[in-house]
Structures are given as C-alpha cells and as structure tokens.
C-alpha cells in the first residue's frame, strides 16, 4: 500500500521535479563557466592591474564588499570567499539565491501540498475513505522526500561535472594582459612586472562538491519537515505555503543579521540556515558548526553537526505532522 502511495506521489511531482532538476543542472553547469571566467580571467586581470599600480592585492574584494556589499558577502559565505581560488568560487554556487530559492520553493511547495493540499483539493476524503492508515500517508511522503531530495542534489552535481567537462582545465593565460601592457609601456618595464609567461593551471575538482550536497539535501529536508508540520495542521495549501515561506524568510534574515551584527549573532542557531555551511564542508571538510562563536564560552555545546541538526529538524517536523494528522478531523472540502 505504501509503495502504491509513493508511486502516485512520485508521479504527481514528476513534471515539477524534472523542471527543478533541469534548472539546477543548467545552473550548476553555468556556475562552472562563471567560476572559470572569474578565477581564471577576471581576477588575474585585476590582480595584475593592482600589481602594476602597486595597489594592495585585496583591493578588488575590499571595494566589492564595502558597505551594503557586506550583505552579499554574508550571504555568499562571509570571509571564506577568495576570488582567485576556483574551489572557493565553486562552493559559492551552493549558496547562490537560485539554489536556495529553488530548494526552498521545492521543499515548501511539495510539503505544503502534502496534507493541506489534499484537503484543499478535496481528494483527501477519496484517499482516506480507502483502508489507508493516516501514518502511511506521512510515511509515503517521507519516502518521496528520501528519493526526490537526493535526485535534486545529484542533478546539481551532474551539472557541475558537465560544466567542468565542457569548460575544460582552468588556466590563467596572461598573454592578453602582457600584450595590452606592452602597447602602453616599454618591454623592459613589462618584463620587470613579473607577469608569468606560461599559462598558470588552477586546481579544480567537482568531486569535493559531493559531500557538501549532503548539507543541501539536509536543508531541503529540514524545510520540508517544518512545512509538513504546518501542512498537517492546515486545510488550505496556499495559506500553508505562505506560512512556510514566511518562516523560511524569517530564519534566513535572522541568520544574515547575525552574520552582520555581532549583537544578533546569538540568534543564528535558531535558523536552519545557520547549519547550512556547504563551503566549510567542501573546502575544509568541517561538518560541525561552531556554537562558541555565536553563544560565547558559556555555550552548552561547543559544536554541533550541521547535517545532523538539519536532519533532526526535518524528523521533528515529520513527527509533529504524524501526531497532528493522525488525531485531527478531516474537514469537508472548502
């Protein structure tokens, strides 16, 4: 019976899943190209210009992240971002609004429809008039999440691999810069600037992204679980989705504010986005979030596993949904 429900739910989400996976696949591929352009072309150019003008090497980043730019720096992963490192920039792809919004919309939209949507459409009584235990419906949604969320993450991974294959090796070619400078300055001066004559090869690997995708999967699951709990209490899909989006937005803002403003940093652990740190997993293999950094030395825990925490939030959401849904009245369709 559960497998029949799962097959039906998968069939329902199939068109939207294909669209989401395709967008993420294309975005990930495009992000590789952007990474190559930024790290192998734009940043070396600006760094060379800075070197010629004897300016501080980090001037470019300082100008970019000055004032309101700090918000985008916080959103993109704080001080972890270094434009000359392909892996740093590749990791930013997982924090890009396209990925976050698409993941959030998927998780909230699907879970919002799980109970409230069936009630809203009036199909819940068709389903529940069959000998289907209510907990089986929640279980079926859990199984669908377990199938669909990794599929979404794998489509992103596949997109990155595809992008790396299309773009090829990341190499900084200084020929263009050297020629441009040669037109303005004598060759002896240009030679003294220390611009490399051979192409510089940058190390980049898509494989490192794979473990970080576990963090993305856990984030989607956490948002899905929280929204499912709301869905189990509601009877209008759009109202539940509205509350789900509001909750996610509040948590996102709390996390960003906490990054920008030290006085609000203690609030960050109540946001699921605090536990979404794919860069740290991808670049430094750090799976724990540092609670001492936000709660100080008095923190009851020094660190907490990011993926574990997000999975726990999702499971709690599912548990609440199970408890509510198995005890509530099923109202007549609106």
């Amino acid at each position: 019976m559960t497998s029949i429900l799962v097959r039906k739910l998968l069939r329902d989400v199939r068109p939207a899943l294909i669209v989401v996976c395709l967008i993420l696949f294309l975005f990930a591929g495009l992000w590789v190209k952007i990474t190559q352009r930024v790290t192998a072309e734009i940043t070396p150019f600006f760094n060379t210009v800075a070197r010629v003008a004897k300016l501080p090497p980090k001037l470019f980043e300082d100008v970019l992240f000055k004032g309101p730019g700090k918000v985008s720096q916080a959103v993109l992963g704080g001080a972890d971002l270094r434009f000359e490192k392909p892996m740093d920039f590749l990791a930013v792809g997982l924090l890009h609004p396209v990925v976050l919004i698409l993941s959030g919309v998927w998780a909230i939209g699907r879970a919002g429809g799980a109970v409230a949507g069936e009630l809203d459409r009036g199909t819940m009584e068709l389903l529940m008039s069959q000998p289907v235990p209510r907990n089986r419906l929640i279980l079926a949604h859990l199984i669908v999440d377990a199938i669909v969320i990794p599929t979404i993450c794998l489509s992103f991974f596949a997109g990155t691999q595809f992008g790396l294959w299309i773009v090829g090796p990341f190499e900084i070619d200084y020929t263009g810069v050297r020629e441009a400078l040669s037109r303005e300055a004598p060759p002896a001066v240009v030679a003294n600037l220390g611009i490399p004559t051979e192409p510089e090869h940058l190390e980049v690997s898509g494989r490192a992204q794979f473990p970080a995708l576990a963090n993305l999967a856990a984030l989607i699951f956490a948002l899905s679980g929280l929204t499912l709990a709301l869905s189990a209490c509601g009877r209008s899909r759009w109202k539940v989705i509205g509350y789900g989006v509001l909750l996610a937005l509040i948590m996102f803002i709390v996390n960003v504010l906490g990054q920008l403003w030290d006085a609000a940093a203690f609030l960050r652990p109540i946001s699921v986005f605090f536990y979404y740190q794919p860069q740290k997993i991808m670049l430094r293999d750090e799976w724990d979030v540092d609670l001492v950094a936000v709660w100080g030395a008095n923190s009851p825990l020094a660190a907490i596993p990011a993926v574990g925490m997000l999975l726990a939030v999702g499971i709690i959401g599912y548990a609440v949904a199970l408890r509510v849904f198995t005890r509530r009245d099923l109202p007549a369709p609106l």
Partner: protein
Amino acid sequence: MLLVAEKLTKDYGSFRALDSLDLTIAPGEVFGLLGPNGSGKTTALRLMLGFLKPTAGRATLAGFDCWAGGVEARKRVAYLPGELRLYENMTGRRLITFLAGLRGERANSEVDDLAKKLDIDIDRPLTHMSSGMKRKVALLTVLVPKVPLIILDEPTNTLDPTMRDELLGQLKRAKDRGQAVLFSSHVLHEVEAVCDRVGILRQGKLVHVQEMSALRDGRTVSARILDTLPFYSPAGDRLPADAIGPDGRLNLTYRGPMPALLEWLAKQRLDDLRIEPLGLAPIYKQYHGAE
C-alpha cells in the same frame, strides 16, 4: 448488526452538528438518511468513515470502532462523497486501479462491464470529463469492491435521469448481493424507490425512522364528500376524527388490501377521488414542512 451508532455526537465549538445519533444497519439493508442541508447527514456519514472524531458516543462497523479502528472499518466500506473531487491528472482506469490497489485488490474485467453499463470511457483523462462522467467513474470505484457496506452522500447529484435510474438499479443489485447501503439524499422518491428504512434528521437529531414496507402497503385516499360517511373506515375500525378536513374533504390513510378499500369506496357517495401510494412526503413535511 453491521453498522451501529450509539449516542454518536459531533460538536464544532459550541455548534452541535450531530446529536446523540442511535442507528443500526443490518447486512443487506438499504438505509436512507433524509434531511435538508445542515441537518447532520454528511457529518453522520463522515463520522462513520472515521474522518471525524466523535465528541461523544461511537460508531462501529462490523465490530470495529470507526475512529479508533478506522482502517479495519474502512476495509468494509466503499464511499462516494457528495462533493466529488478526483485526481484530475489520472485517467478513470488509473484512478480505479489506484484505489483498488490501496485495498490490496486488482481491478478486474468487471470494471469494463460496469463502465459499459454506465456508458463511460474510463481511458479518458478525468480532466477531460464532464462532472456527470466523473461521478460515474467515482460510482465505479464504489461498486467494484465487494464490501459489506456502501456509503453514498447524495449520490444522484449531477446524474441525468437515465443514469439516476441505473444507479438506483445498481444499489438494488448491491442489496441483492447482500451489501448494505447507507445513503443520504434530498430526493424523496429516490429514497422511496430503494430504501428498506429511512431516517429523518433535523438539526442534528434523528427525529424519525420509517420502515418503508409500512409505507409501501399504504395508500392515501382523498375525495370530496357528497353525503355523510359511515362510522367505520375501510379497515373496519373507527374512522379517525381528523379524516374529514376543514375543507370538508376526506383525507384517509389506509393500510390493507386494495379490494377492501375499493369495496368501501364503492359504497360511498364521493367525487374527485384520488388514491395515491403512501409516500415519505407527509412524514418528511411533518418535520421539515416549514423549511
């Protein structure tokens, strides 16, 4: 008894939607629930399906509590909702197969036979079907599983007269197979046509239960009196005091053999005579006349 409701009550806040419903339905019985909108028909049916948790009392189906043992209870019931909403992304056949699968059954060749009888193409997507066609598909999903009880909430909504007759025929066949049927309706003559017993609900209370066999044996006689009437009725007992209405007409309810009635009428001097089968209308009007 197949279905037993004992003091079944449902409150929504301070509003009592169903008030201490006591009801039993035997295997193979067709029971009709009558009442206007808001009288508690749908609430009663939803409680029996385990969609709602009773505020007080309980309903059991084949001994299984409809709320606490809802799954076991629902194994024994097929339900056609009043507000019909189907999975529009499915074809009729896929819906039937899906619902049969949830029951652990397979849709067999009977589906095609029934679809032919009901004149529907079940291979069409539901989204391309009219509301009447969708209702027929839903009806199929109810008629296919051979469960002890079929519950239908206003089943003839949006059905054309031919299909309505077909549906009532199917309900009779279900009864012949030993299935019990519980259905709600506004339409008195449909209920009269198929039900063994009828319950009338008023403001959440079951105010009357009528054995239809008692009505089927009865006739109402209405005539203009041209002369004085005898002291005795056709049945041989005293003519009731209210048999002569304020307009001077004879209005009589008679239960008994037809020849005796005709013989009695032949002896009277009457004009404008009408003899009609005793229906539910007078009983229904007694409780809902002003509504």
